[in-house]
C-alpha cells in the first residue's frame, strides 16, 4: 500500500502530526502544516459527533435536507443541496478546511482506543488538540502520558481560555471568546445598541490557527537543535489579544476605553468607508490617508465643487466632517459600477476595491491569475474549485494534493501500514466500533 498523499519536496516532509481537533481552529492550524508537507492524521470517532465539525446534522430523512428546510445559512451547503448517503462527507464546511490530511477513526473512550492512540503517538512528532480541558482530563490524555510513548513529542493544546484560571472549562465558540476579549464591543454600527449592532463573526479561529501552527514550527525548530520536545499551551483567547493592540494600549496609556468606530479608520483617514455603487447591493471600500491621497482622490473625481469646500481642506477637518463627506462620496460612487470605482481611484493611487461576494471572487482576474483557486475532485462531493494554498514560495511549488478526507478514509494505511495491525485484528476493531466509514447508528441526528 502506498502513502496516500505525496509530500515529497515540501518543507515539512517527514514530520507526522496526530490531531484530535475539530470545528475550525484546530483543523485550520494543521491544514497549514499539512499544506506544506506534514503528514497530518486527524483522529475521529464513529461513536460520537462533534457539533459543527462534520455539519450540524448527520442524518437527513430520505430525500430531505434538514438544514435547507430550516432556512440554514451558508456554511452548511451540500453539493446541489443534496445531503446524499453520507452527509458528513459532503458538507461545505468540513471540505473547506481538511484537504491534504489523512483521516482515521478510533474510539478513545475505550482502553483499546487509547492504546492505539498511544502506539500512533510513538511514531509521531506532534500531537495537537483543541478541546475543552475537561474533555482531555476525562480521556486521560496528558503530556506525561504522551511522553511515555514518545519522549520528544511536541504537544500543542489549544483550549479556548487556557489550562488554568476561572474560565478554564468554559465551553464556547469563537463568537463567545470575542465578546470576552472586547472585540465584539469594538465593532458594530455605532448608532445601535450593542445587542443588535452587528452579526457574529469568527476571527479567532484564524488567529488560533496561525498561532498554533507557529508554535508547532518553533517547537520543531527547537527540537531539531536540542532534541527536546515540549508541552505548548495556546489559550485561543490570549493569542487574539495582541491583535487589539491599539485598544489595549490606549487603555493602559490613557485610560480610554475605546468603542466601535463602525467602518471608520483608527488612525484618522477620511473618507474611509463602504460606499454604495450602481447595481443591487454593490459596494466599494475607499480609504484616503493624508493630503497627497486626498488630492489624488479629487483628481480622480475631476475636482467637483464640494471637494473645494473649506470643511474638507485638511485631514483633521475631513475626519471631523466625515458624515457630510460620506454623502458626497456616495453620490459619486452610486453612479458607477463597484469595479469601475476601483479602477478609477487606483489609477490615481488611491486605495479602493469592491466588496466581493463569492461570485465576484471566483471571477476576479487578479485572483484567478494568482493561482489561489484550485479545482479538486472529491469522491463523494464531486468536482469544485476551492480556496487553495495560503501563500507561495518561489522554489517550492505547492497545491492541494488531495481532497478533504472522508470519515475513516485512511484507516487501512494508519492501522495496517503504520501500526502493523493484522487483517484479523483490523476486522475485530471494526466489529468493536473503532474502525468504520459511517457513524454508528445511534449517533445523530
Amino acid at each position, binding site marked *: 500500500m502506498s502513502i496516500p498523499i505525496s509530500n515529497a519536496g*515540501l518543507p*515539512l516532509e517527514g514530520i507526522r502530526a496526530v490531531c484530535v481537533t475539530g470545528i475550525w481552529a484546530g*483543523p485550520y492550524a494543521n491544514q*497549514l502544516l499539512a499544506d506544506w508537507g506534514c503528514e497530518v492524521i486527524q483522529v475521529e470517532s464513529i461513536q460520537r459527533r462533534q457539533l459543527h465539525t462534520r455539519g450540524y446534522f448527520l442524518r437527513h430523512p430520505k430525500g430531505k435536507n434538514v438544514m435547507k428546510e430550516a*432556512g*440554514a*445559512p*451558508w*456554511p452548511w451547503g*451540500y453539493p446541489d443541496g443534496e445531503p446524499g448517503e453520507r452527509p458528513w462527507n459532503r458538507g*461545505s464546511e468540513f471540505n473547506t478546511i481538511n484537504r491534504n490530511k489523512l483521516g482515521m477513526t478510533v474510539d478513545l473512550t475505550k482502553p483499546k482506543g487509547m492504546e492505539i492512540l498511544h502506539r500512533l503517538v510513538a511514531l509521531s512528532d506532534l500531537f495537537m488538540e483543541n478541546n475543552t480541558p475537561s474533555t482531555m482530563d476525562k480521556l486521560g490524555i496528558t*503530556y506525561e502520558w504522551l511522553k511515555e510513548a514518545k519522549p520528544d513529542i511536541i504537544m500543542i493544546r489549544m483550549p479556548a481560555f487556557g489550562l488554568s*484560571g476561572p474560565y478554564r472549562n*468554559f*465551553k464556547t465558540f469563537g*463568537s463567545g471568546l470575542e*465578546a470576552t476579549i472586547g*472585540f465584539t*464591543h469594538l*465593532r*458594530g454600527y455605532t448608532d445601535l445598541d*450593542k445587542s*443588535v449592532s*452587528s*452579526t457574529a*463573526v*469568527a476571527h479567532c479561529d484564524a488567529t488560533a490557527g496561525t*498561532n498554533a501552527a507557529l508554535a508547532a514550527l518553533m517547537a520543531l*525548530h*527547537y527540537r531539531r537543535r536540542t532534541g527536546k520536545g515540549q508541552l505548548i*499551551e*495556546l489559550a485561543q483567547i*490570549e493569542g487574539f*489579544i495582541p*491583535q487589539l*493592540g*491599539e485598544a489595549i494600549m*490606549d487603555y493602559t*496609556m490613557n485610560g*480610554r*476605553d475605546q468603542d466601535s*468606530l*463602525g*467602518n471608520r*479608520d483608527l488612525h484618522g483617514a477620511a473618507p*474611509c468607508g463602504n460606499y454604495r455603487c450602481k447595481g443591487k447591493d454593490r*459596494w466599494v*471600500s475607499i480609504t484616503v490617508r493624508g493630503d497627497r491621497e486626498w488630492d489624488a482622490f479629487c483628481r480622480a473625481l475631476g475636482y467637483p465643487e464640494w471637494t473645494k469646500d473649506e470643511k474638507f481642506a485638511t485631514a483633521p477637518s475631513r475626519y471631523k466632517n466625515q458624515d457630510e463627506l460620506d454623502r458626497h462620496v456616495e453620490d459619486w460612487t452610486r453612479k458607477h459600477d463597484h469595479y469601475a470605482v476601483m479602477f478609477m481611484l487606483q489609477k490615481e493611487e*488611491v486605495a479602493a476595491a*469592491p*466588496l466581493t*461576494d463569492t461570485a465576484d471572487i*471566483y471571477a476576479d482576474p487578479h485572483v484567478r*491569475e494568482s493561482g489561489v483557486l484550485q479545482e479538486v475532485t472529491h469522491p463523494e462531493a464531486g468536482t469544485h474549485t476551492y*480556496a487553495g494554498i*495560503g*501563500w*507561495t*514560495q*518561489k522554489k517550492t511549488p505547492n497545491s492541494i494534493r488531495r481532497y478533504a478526507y472522508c470519515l475513516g478514509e485512511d484507516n487501512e494505511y494508519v492501522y495496517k501500514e503504520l501500526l502493523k495491525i493484522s487483517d484479523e485484528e483490523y476486522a475485530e476493531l471494526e466489529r468493536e466500533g473503532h474502525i468504520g466509514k459511517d457513524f454508528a447508528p445511534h449517533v445523530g441526528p
Partner: protein
Amino acid sequence: MEQVLSNVKVLDLTWYIAGPYCTKLLADYGADVIKVERPDTGDPARKMGPFLNDEPHPEKSGLFLHLNTNKRGITLNLKSETGNKIFKDLVKEADILVESFSPRVMPSLGLSYETLEEINPKLVMTSISNFGQQGPYRDFKASELIFQGFGGYMYLVGTADREPLKKAGNVIQYQLGSTAAVATMVAFYGAQQKGSGDHVDVNGVREEITCIDGKRTMMTAYQYTGHVYGRAKSSSPGIRLCKDGYVFIVGFGSVTAGLFFPALARMLELTPEQKEELSKPGVMNDPVKQGEFDEEIMTPWLLKHTMKEIVEKAQAYGVMSTPYNTPGGLLKDPHFRERNYWEEIDHPVAGKLTYPGAPIKMGIGGWQMRRPAPLLGQHNEEVYGDLGYDKEDLVQLRQSGII
C-alpha cells in the same frame, strides 16, 4: 535564558502593522531581529496613535511600542550607495529577511531576491504585500477596510438594509503578520533541511481568501450550491442585555437553537407545558415562534441576572455563555489576572506600561520580554560595530545621512 528561536537572525525591513507584527512574534520567542528604519522619520507607525497622554511623539506611539518589542533598531538609507552596501553586509549574516514594501521597491533598490540569494543562498526572504508580488493589481493600494472587503468576509457582515460592516481595529493586518510568521517559519524549516533558501510571497488578499472564516466556507458553499449569499435581515451577535450590562449567550433565534434547547430549557427552568410546546416539530426552526419565546421567557430571565450569574449558570448547564468586556474590562478580568497574562514593560521614554503578554505559552524556551521597542537608531553603534565600523565611521555615516 535560551528561547526557541535564540539562534535565528532576522533582518526586518517592515513598517506599519503586518510586517512588524510578524517579526514581533519571532522576536518575542527569541529571534535576534534587527529592525531597519529610515534615518529621519523611522517607521511611519511612530506617527500613528494611540499616543501616551495623547501627545504625538515618535517614541510614545502605543502602536509602535506594542509592535516592536524585543527588536534592535538601526537606521539606514537604502537608497544611498553606502547604505545599500551595508545592507548587503547585513544580509550575509541573516537567516531571514522580512520586507513589506510595495512589490517594485526592493528590485528598484537593487535588492531583489535574485540578487540577495547570490549573496546568501540560505536566506529565506519573506515579502508581505497587499495584492501579491505578481498580477494585474500588484501595484494597487490597500487598507484594513480593503483587505476585509475585497479578500475577506465584510460583504456578509452587518444587516441587509445597511452598509457592510468592518471587523474592529486593524485585525486583518495583524492576522496577515501572523500568517507571514507561519510562512516564514515553514520556509526556514525547509531551508535548514535543504541548505538553500526561498522567497515567500504573503499578501493580504490571498491571506483573507484562504484563512478560515465565513468567507472561505461560503466560497465552498457557493461552489456546491450556486447560491450567492448576502447579509442577514437582522443582526445576531449573541450579545444580550442583562441586569448589569451585557453578556454573550447562545439562545433562541438561530437555526441551530434546537441543538442547545434541552440545556437551555433546564437552565431557564421551563415548565413541562412550555417544554412540550417548544419541543413540537418545527418550532425551534420557526423564527417567529422563537422570537416569541425569547421575548416571553429568555429576555426577562436575563434581565433578572447579572453577567457573572448568567455565565456561571449557563456553563454549569452546558449552555455556551461568556463574559462581555470592553477593552478596559478585559484588563480587569480576573481570568487573565490569575493567569498572569499582562506584562509590564519599562521603556526609556514612555515609561512603565502594561502590554499584551504571551500569545503562546511554551514549556521550554518560550515568550520573554528582553527589551522594549527600540528608540530610533538606538542600536546603530552595536550593530554597525559588529560589522567593523568604528565611532568615527558612524559620525561620517550620520553626517552624510546614511544612518
